[in-house]
């Protein structure tokens, strides 16, 4: 029986203008991923300065340089609509590669922050 799955993967951004690449592994019971969104403890920094690349099961979903702001949402968006739906992607090897790039922006001053990739999907459950 397939059940709802959601997990948040955090990336620490400690230096301005740098790219941070992290590979996460989802649980073996996870079969598909159908939604992604980006959160941060400094929304303004992630919104203005961030761009990213996302790969699931060695398949590039978002190309390098895609703006973070395009898949962020605020509290004014209904909670069940905050993810960006990408269709059902088979997780396969279970690896999610997230590459986040911070770049200088005229409106903000850098401070260390955390950027989180949240994924929604389906997992196999016997219950």
């Amino acid at each position: 029986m397939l059940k709802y799955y959601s997990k948040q993967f955090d990336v620490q951004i400690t230096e301005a203008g740098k790219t941070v690449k992290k590979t996460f592994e989802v649980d073996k019971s996870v079969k598909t991923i159908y939604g992604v969104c980006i959160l941060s403890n400094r929304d303004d920094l992630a919104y203005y300065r961030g761009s990213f690349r996302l790969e699931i099961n060695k398949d590039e979903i978002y190309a390098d340089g895609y703006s973070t702001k395009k898949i962020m949402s605020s509290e004014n968006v209904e909670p069940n609509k905050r993810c960006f739906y990408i269709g059902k992607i088979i997780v396969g090897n279970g690896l999610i590669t997230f590459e986040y790039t911070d770049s200088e922006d005229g409106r903000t001053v850098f401070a260390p922050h955390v950027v989180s990739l949240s994924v929604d999907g389906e997992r196999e459950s016997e219950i």
Partner: protein
Amino acid sequence: MSRVRILVTETSITKAGQVKHFQIKLSKHAYKIVGIETDVFLKSRSGKEIIAPLATAEIKPTEIFVPTRELRKEGYYNVAGKLSLQSMERENIFFSDWVRASVFYEGFLRPSSFQIHTGLKDIRGKTAPKKVDVPVESTVINALYRDNIGKHLKQDVTYTLKVFVWMETNEHQNGVAFEFLNNEKESTEK
């Protein structure tokens, strides 16, 4: 088998009122462009703050006791410029739209501020790619961009313009079904 891919093209704008021609190189597997999105990364401070234009509302007698709100001092001019795209296979341009530099109003940082004035109000709604349906045979499309924000502020504003081209490609992969491709309502809201 077909799938959708995103292509990111960047170009730099440095002068006020600059007109820039550039080319967007597509993947050799691409056979159709299905969506266009744009974004702006500012590199320099705009230097000036522009007071948002206020509509002069007519005061009706019943509203006379309503306390007048303070004029907003914060806010930016958020149109960066205009982008036009032309495909080799089509006459005339197939895409022309204002490029908006998404902004948070200054009030965002103040917890007491009313959320409706922030750029984050409904990002998902605002940033759905603009749907187009352009078959491509060659691997290049021409782009023309005219700067507006520099002209408006009467100073050079340096920024990176990003163009995201969503295209369908012939590839032996399962691919991704992005929501905007199936959701007519959302794409027309833009």
